[in-house]
């Protein structure tokens, strides 16, 4: 029998190789993919988030754990789909128009995936129209918008407006984040939530889908 506490530790330590090996071993031993995710991967990413909040971890450790988790999810995802497992929620994420910065956005995407969300990452320089289209095609419950520049922040507002004029604003919750972005700005543009880091974004997304 595989000792799956090692899987938990490997994700927390950001050890991609062991994470993948342990995941393969667990699959070979017929442990249900939902169980691997819910009992080991999600708690591991929660622990990573806790260490980040406590400033034991910084961005490098967060990235490393996210990479380890993603490697395992790549082989788990088809199995989860085949078993009809439901994601924690469906998220569309991207950096807004005119902005090419994506480290923060990628971290949020990785942490949300690690928390069991289905994440569609639209990349950077994403137009309001593309966000609207993805919300419709992916049947998303949450849209996450990122901006790193004071000069691209207004594109967050136009994206929220585009969701409204397309008649889908009521169907989705809008989360925003990025260095110059604030809670007050979220209120000003009619977004539902602001998160100051990737671990807080997971907590916010969980709250929004539960609401």
């Amino acid at each position, binding site marked *: 029998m595989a000792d799956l506490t090692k899987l938990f530790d490997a994700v927390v330590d950001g050890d991609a190789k062991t994470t993948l090996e342990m995941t393969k071993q667990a699959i070979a031993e017929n442990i249900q993919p939902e169980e691997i995710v819910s009992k080991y991967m999600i708690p591991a990413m929660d622990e990573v988030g806790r260490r980040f909040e406590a400033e034991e*971890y910084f961005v490098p*450790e967060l990235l490393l754990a996210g990479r380890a988790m993603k490697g395992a999810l790549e082989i788990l995802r088809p199995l989860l789909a085949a078993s009809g497992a439901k994601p924690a929620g469906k998220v569309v994420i991207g950096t807004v128009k005119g902005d090419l910065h994506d480290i923060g956005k990628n971290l949020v995407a990785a942490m949300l995936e690690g928390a069991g969300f289905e994440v569609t990452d639209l990349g950077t320089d994403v137009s309001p129209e593309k966000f609207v289209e993805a919300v419709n095609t992916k049947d998303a419950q949450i849209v996450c918008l990122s901006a790193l520049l004071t000069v691209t922040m207004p594109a967050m507002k136009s994206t929220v407006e585009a969701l409204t004029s397309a008649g889908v604003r009521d169907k989705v919750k809008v989360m925003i984040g990025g260095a*110059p972005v604030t809670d007050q700005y979220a209120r000003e543009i009619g977004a539902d939530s602001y998160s100051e880091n990737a671990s807080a974004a997971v907590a916010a997304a969980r709250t929004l889908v539960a609401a």
Partner: protein
Amino acid sequence: MMTSQERVLASLNHRQPDQVPIDLSAHRSSGMAAIAYPKVRAALGLEPRTVYVYDPVQQLAIIDEDVLDRFGIDVTEIGRAFCREEKWWTDWTLPDGTPCKMPVWAKPERNGSEWVVRAPRGHIMARMPEWSVTFDQAWWPFLDGEEDLTKIQELFKEHMWPGMPSPPGPSISGPEELTGPVSELRKKTRRAIIGGFGGNMLEMGQFHYRMDNFLMLLAGEPKRAHRFLDALVEIYMKRLERFLAAVGPYIDIIGFGDDLGSQNRPQISPQMYREFFKPRHAMMWARAKQLANVKVMLHSCGAVRALLPDLIEAGLDAINPVQISCRGMEAEGLKRDFGKDLCFWGGGCDTQNVLPNGTPAQIREHVLHQCEVMAPGGGFVFQQVHNIMANVPPENIIAMYDAVREFNQRGAN
């Protein structure tokens, strides 16, 4: 009354200067967007002039002497002694339609709806999407995970930040050619002079491997990260010696850069700073002070408070840009805890919210407050936290400098 140079040096030495010294555009993080600049000239009632782009990545303007005089600016940098001839400039149009001159080595071209800049080998090294007003890096030499550490130096011209420099850039072939024009600048100006050197380590790793990959290298493959940094710093140490042999007698401050912070905390843990960067900073800064009578300034954005004790121990004299909107970076706390050991070069006006979004009256009040906290006992050079962005209204910019002048006049009376 002190000269500008005396004023800056007094402050760097923690002696009270006659006035708070002011920096505008004496390095690549205290400038003004080329889009904002003509509007400021117009608002000041000065005649329109051709806009020369000083920093092609961030599209900052070279600020003319009349504006520097109007705002009472006390610092300049060695690049102003170069590229005075038209042959170093090429015509371009800023994203808002304003005609400008770009350095010839950084001529943007159209690629679909975006602007791109190509490296000497032909690949796209920087891109700027429609609606943006700055370039971003588009090519990383070690992105594929294979690195040839003997190639670092020759690759500098192939990726964005070192490949799109400010003047003198490739107008000179080596640091030895700096001596003549910089010694002339020293004779002509009463301002303090910054010699921008760089010495970026965390950033240069991020420029080579891409930001996320280099951060993971530090955490996951420390030996490989050390090998890269060893190779890099070997290049820097040789450059430092040639640079200071050329300009050491004529400059007051040597400018280093390395963004170590993010909005709420350092990018890396203090422990990681101590392992990878502190010893190398200490080595470069000690050598600089051995070679010339200079103060060491480090530009490091973001929430870096947790790293300040180590930076001070490594020999740092001045920290820039003092990003006061970040966690732990409130001026009161920094001045109280580190004011004896460190000069704050920046933190004069918040650029994430107050400067772009405030009213002139709010800006005045904010700037006066920052000066009241930071100025006592010296150890403060006024600079808005970072470059003045394209969307900042000219009346806000003028209100900011007028507030420093008001503070300084108040002190004089």
